[in-house]
C-alpha cells in the first residue's frame, strides 16, 4: 500500500471530517491562502494549528489528492506549485483545471506556492506556467474526472460510456433523473488515486486531456479572481503578515561598496525607543526594534566604522562601456558559425557595422523586498512573495543548517516578481534574524536599498557587422556581445544571496554568468555569433550584481540585433517590415511552426497599424515634432511577437513620446484572452520604461540611483494614447485539436527598445545605439547629426 503523503493541513482536515469548514478557516473569500489572517479570530485559530503542525513534508505529486480536493459543498480546490506575479496565471490555472474536471469555474479555488501544502512545481519563472506547468495540471484534473466517472459508474450501476458529466455532476445519459454530484462521490474524502511520472512535469493519470474543440472554460475572458480583493482593500499581502510578538528589522548597508565593517557603536541607538538589538555577522548589519518606524530610525542612526576598499569596486557608469570593451572576458561561448562568414563578407557588395550599448537596468520593485519569519516551535515559517517559494525553503534550510522538514514558506501576494524574488535576499535575512532573536521578525528594505542593491539586468555592449549582396540580401553576419554577468545570481542559492555574501559565506568560484546571442528566424546563410562575459573589479558584496530580470538578456540583445536588421534594411533601400518578412519566409528554421506563425504575427501587426510600405527614414519633416514608426520582431521559447511603435520626437527638447503601440502576439492556444492581452500590454510598457528611462548610475564608490528622482521610471504621461494587442493564431492548422499553449509573460517585453529606436530613426534619420532614450541623449544625438 502506498504511503500517502498529504499536505498536513489537508490531512488534519480530512481526519476531522470537516474539510470544508477547516478550509474556510484558512482560505480567504478570494480562495487565496491567507494564513496571515492571524489577525482575525477564526483564521487565527487555524493558523495556530497549522503553525504548530510540523514537520513539513513535501506534498506527493504522484497522489491525486495533493492536487485536487472536492468539498462537501460540491466545490473544488486546486493545489498547484506555481505563483502568480500579477499576470493572472492563477485564474488561468483554474480555467484549465475546471475545464478538464468539468466543474464550473466559480465553484473552484486555487492555492499556490506554499511549500507544505502545494506540490513543488518550482514556483514561477521563464514564463513556463502555461506552456509547461499547465500540462500536469490539466492531466491531473482529467484524471480526477475519470476517477469520478468510475465511482459514478458503480454508484449508478451504469457503464462509463452511458454517463454524461456536466458542472460537477454525473448523470445517466439514457435517464437523466439518475444523477450524482462530485460531492456525493468524494466530497471531503480522498480520491486515493496514484499518479505516475518521472518528475512533476510528467505527472499523469490514465485519462487523456480534452481536445481543443472540447474546451469550454479555456478561451474565455473570465475576470481575474484576485482583482476584487486588491481594489477593495481586503487582500492580505505578504507585507501584512503579522504574528504575535513580531518585531521589525531594517538593514544597514555598507556606505561604500566593498567596505569592511570594523566596529559598531551600539550606544548610538541603544537608548532609542523600542530598541532591541543590533545583529551583525561579517559585513551584514541589521537593527531590530519593537516597531517598524523605530527600526527605520535606529538603522539610520546607527554609527559604525567601515574601512573603505583599497581599489574601486567598479568604474563610473559613464565609463562602464569603455571599461567593458577593454576588459578581458572571464568566459566566452564557442562561436556559433553557419556557412563561411569570412568568404561571404569578402564577396559582399556592402558591409555595414554598428555598435550598441545597454546599461545596467534594475528591477526597482514598487514595494521593496520584504519577508516575515516565525521561529516558533523550533521551526521556521517564512511569509513571503518569493516567486520560487520552494527554492527559498530549500535555501533557508541549508543556510540555517536546519532539516528541510522544519522549514516552510507560505507564499502570499506581493509586488512584481520578474525574477527578483527568485533571488530572495530578504527571505534569508528574515529567517536568520528570527532565529537570532527567537521571535518573529519582519524585514523590509528601504527605497534606496532596493533601488541600489536589487539584482540587475546585465549591461551589454554589442558589435555587429553585416554583408549585403548586390540584391540587398543579408548574406553575412558577425555578432559579438559582451555582458557584465560574471557572478550572476542563482535562485535562492544559500551562498550567493546578499546576506551570505556580506557574511563572507560564498562558493569558491563565482557563477560564470552568461551572454546571449539573438533568437533568429531569419535566413542568414553565413554567420558567426559570439557571446562573452566580463566582470567588474569587485564580484562579491556589490550592488551591481546581476540576476534574472524579465527575459534576462532579451531586451538588450533584441535592441542590438533588431536595430541592426533595421540598419541593413535601410542600406538595402528596403521597407524594414518587408525586409524581415522576406528573410523569415526563406528561413530553414520552423520549430513549433514558428516560420508561419512569425509571418502571420508580423502581418497582423502591420495590418492593424496600417503600415504603408516604404524605406526608413521617412522623408524629412519640418516643425518641432517629428513622427515615425518602427518595427521589431522576435520570439521567446515558442511565443512570437511583432511590435510596432509610433513615436513623436521633439527636436527642441529631445523628448520622445511613444504615441501608439501595436503588438502582434502568438502564444498558441490562449487560455484567457483578456488576461493575455493585459500581460502583453503591461509587459510592453515595462519594456517601454526600459527604452525611455531606466538606467542604473554609479560613481566609483556606490550606486547613485537610489529613488524615483535619481532613478526615473515610466509614468502616466509616458503612456501611449493607443495600444493594440492583437492575439494571433498563426498555426498552419489553427483549429487543430492539440494546439499547444505557450507563455505570455515576457515575450512582449523583449522587442520594445528596438521598436522605439527604429521609430526614432524613421522620424529623425538619427540612429540611437545606446539605451535608454532620455531626452538629453536624444537631443545630443540630434544635434550631432544636425537634426536638432
Amino acid at each position: 500500500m502506498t504511503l500517502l503523503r498529504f499536505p498536513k493541513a489537508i490531512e488534519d482536515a480530512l481526519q476531522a471530517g470537516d474539510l470544508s469548514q477547516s478550509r474556510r478557516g484558512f482560505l480567504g473569500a478570494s480562495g487565496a491562502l491567507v494564513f496571515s489572517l492571524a489577525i482575525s479570530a477564526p483564521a487565527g485559530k487555524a493558523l495556530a494549528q497549522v503553525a504548530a503542525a510540523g514537520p513539513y513534508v513535501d506534498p506527493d505529486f504522484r497522489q491525486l489528492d495533493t492536487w485536487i480536493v472536492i468539498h462537501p459543498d460540491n466545490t473544488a480546490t486546486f493545489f498547484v506549485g506555481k505563483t502568480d506575479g500579477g499576470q493572472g496565471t492563477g485564474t488561468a490555472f483554474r480555467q484549465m483545471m475546471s475545464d478538464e474536471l468539468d466543474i464550473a469555474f466559480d465553484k473552484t479555488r486555487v492555492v499556490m506556492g506554499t511549500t507544505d501544502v502545494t506540490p513543488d512545481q518550482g514556483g514561477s519563472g521563464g514564463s513556463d506556467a502555461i506552456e509547461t506547468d499547465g500540462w500536469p495540471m490539466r492531466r491531473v484534473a482529467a484524471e480526477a474526472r475519470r476517477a469520478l466517472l468510475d465511482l459514478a459508474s458503480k454508484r449508478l450501476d451504469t457503464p462509463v460510456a452511458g454517463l454524461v458529466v456536466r458542472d460537477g455532476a454525473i448523470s445517466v445519459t439514457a435517464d437523466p433523473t439518475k444523477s450524482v454530484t462530485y460531492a456525493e462521490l468524494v466530497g471531503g474524502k480522498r480520491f486515493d488515486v496514484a499518479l505516475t511520472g518521472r518528475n512533476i512535469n510528467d505527472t499523469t493519470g490514465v485519462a487523456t486531456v480534452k481536445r481543443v474543440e472540447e474546451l469550454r472554460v479555456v478561451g474565455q475572458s473570465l475576470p481575474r479572481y484576485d482583482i476584487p480583493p486588491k481594489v477593495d482593500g481586503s487582500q492580505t499581502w505578504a507585507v501584512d503578515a503579522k504574528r504575535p510578538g513580531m518585531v521589525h528589522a531594517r538593514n544597514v548597508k555598507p556606505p561604500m561598496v566593498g567596505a569592511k565593517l570594523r566596529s559598531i557603536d551600539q550606544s548610538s541607538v541603544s537608548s532609542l525607543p523600542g530598541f532591541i538589538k543590533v545583529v551583525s555577522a561579517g559585513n551584514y548589519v541589521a537593527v531590530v526594534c519593537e516597531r517598524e518606524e523605530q527600526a527605520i530610525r535606529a538603522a539610520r542612526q546607527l554609527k559604525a566604522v567601515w574601512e573603505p576598499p583599497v581599489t574601486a569596486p567598479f568604474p563610473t557608469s559613464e565609463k562602464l562601456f569603455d571599461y567593458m570593451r577593454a576588459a578581458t572576458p572571464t568566459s566566452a561561448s564557442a562561436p556559433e558559425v553557419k556557412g563561411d562568414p569570412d568568404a561571404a563578407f569578402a564577396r559582399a557588395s556592402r558591409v555595414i557595422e554598428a555598435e550598441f550599448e545597454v546599461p545596467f537596468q534594475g528591477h526597482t520593485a514598487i514595494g521593496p523586498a520584504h519577508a516575515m519569519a516565525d521561529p516558533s516551535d523550533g521551526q521556521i515559517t517564512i511569509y513571503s512573495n518569493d516567486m520560487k517559494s520552494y527554492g527559498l525553503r530549500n535555501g533557508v534550510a541549508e543556510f540555517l543548517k536546519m532539516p528541510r522538514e522544519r522549514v516552510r514558506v507560505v507564499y502570499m501576494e506581493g509586488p512584481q516578481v520578474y525574477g527578483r524574488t527568485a533571488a530572495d535576499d530578504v527571505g534569508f535575512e528574515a529567517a536568520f534574524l528570527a532565529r537570532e532573536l527567537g521571535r518573529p521578525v519582519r524585514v523590509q528594505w528601504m527605497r534606496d536599498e532596493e533601488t541600489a542593491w536589487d539584482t540587475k539586468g546585465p549591461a551589454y555592449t554589442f558589435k555587429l557587422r553585416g554583408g549585403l549582396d548586390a540584391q540587398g540580401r543579408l548574406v553575412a553576419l558577425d555578432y559579438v556581445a559582451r555582458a557584465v554577468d560574471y557572478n550572476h545570481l542563482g535562485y535562492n542559492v544559500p551562498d550567493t544571496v546578499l546576506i551570505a555574501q556580506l557574511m563572507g559565506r560564498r562558493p569558491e568560484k563565482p557563477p560564470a554568468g552568461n551572454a546571449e546571442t539573438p533568437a533568429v528566424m531569419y535566413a542568414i546563410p553565413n554567420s558567426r555569433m559570439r557571446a562573452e562575459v566580463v566582470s567588474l573589479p569587485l564580484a562579491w558584496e556589490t550592488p551591481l550584481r546581476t540576476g534574472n530580470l524579465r527575459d534576462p538578456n532579451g531586451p538588450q540583445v533584441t535592441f542590438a540585433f533588431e536595430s541592426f536588421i533595421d540598419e541593413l534594411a535601410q542600406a538595402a533601400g528596403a521597407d524594414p517590415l518587408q525586409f524581415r518578412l522576406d528573410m523569415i519566409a526563406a528561413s530553414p528554421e520552423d520549430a513549433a511552426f514558428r516560420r508561419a506563425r512569425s509571418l502571420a504575427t508580423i502581418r497582423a501587426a502591420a495590418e492593424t497599424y496600417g503600415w504603408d510600405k516604404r524605406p526608413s527614414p521617412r522623408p524629412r519633416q519640418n516643425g518641432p515634432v517629428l513622427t515615425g514608426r518602427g518595427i521589431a520582431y522576435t520570439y521567446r521559447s515558442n511565443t512570437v511577437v511583432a511590435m510596432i511603435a509610433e513615436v513623436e520626437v521633439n527636436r527642441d527638447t529631445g523628448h520622445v513620446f511613444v504615441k501608439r503601440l501595436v503588438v502582434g502576439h502568438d502564444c498558441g492556444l490562449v487560455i484567457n484572452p483578456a488576461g493575455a492581452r493585459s500581460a502583453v500590454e503591461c509587459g510592453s510598457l515595462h519594456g517601454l520604461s526600459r527604452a525611455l528611462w531606466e538606467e542604473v548610475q554609479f560613481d566609483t564608490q556606490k550606486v547613485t540611483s537610489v529613488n524615483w528622482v535619481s532613478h526615473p521610471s515610466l509614468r502616466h504621461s509616458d503612456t501611449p494614447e493607443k495600444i493594440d494587442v492583437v492575439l494571433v493564431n498563426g498555426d498552419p492548422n489553427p483549429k487543430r485539436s492539440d494546439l499547444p499553449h505557450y507563455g505570455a509573460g515576457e515575450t512582449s517585453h523583449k522587442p520594445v527598445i528596438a521598436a522605439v529606436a527604429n521609430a526614432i530613426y524613421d522620424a529623425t534619420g538619427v540612429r540611437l545605439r545606446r539605451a535608454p532614450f532620455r531626452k538629453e541623449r536624444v537631443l545630443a544625438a540630434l544635434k550631432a547629426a544636425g537634426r536638432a
Partner: protein
Amino acid sequence: MVSLRVNGATHEVDVDPATPLLYVLRNDLRLSGPRFGCGLGQCGTCTVIIDGVAARSCIVNVGRASGEITTLEGLSKDGALDPLQQAWIDEQAVQCGYCQNGQIMTARALLNKNPNPTDAEIRQGMEGVLCRCMTYYRVQAAIKRAAGRPVTPSRGA
C-alpha cells in the same frame, strides 16, 4: 496618545506623534490598503485621502493628521464599491496590484475635484503615482470609465 479619525471611526493610539501615519494605519489599525513604497512621498503607494485631498501617508506625521482620513478600505459604502473600484474590476486594471491603492485613492481625489477630467488632466493628475507593472493604460481607462466617458478597449482577435 494620538487621536485620529479613520474611515468614520475615532481611534486613540499610543505612539510618538512624529510617527509617519502609514505605520500607524498599517500596524496599529491593521489596515492593508496603504503600503510602503518609498517613504519619500515619491511613488504614491501609501496614499490616503485626508479631508478630501490625496496625501502620502509615509510623510505625514500622525500627530498632524487631524482631519478625516479615508483609506482604500473606507472607499466602499454599505458594501457597495466606489465607482472607481468597480471600474478597476471592469477594466481589469491590475497586474500585481501593490501600487493600486495609490492609483485608486489618487484618482478618487482627482474625480472629487474634477468629475469630468480630460485625458490630459488624467495624465497630469495621476503623474506622481508610479506603477512598475505598468498598468497605466488600464488605469487611465478605468478612470475614464468611472467618469462616465467612453473607453477604447484594447483590441484583439
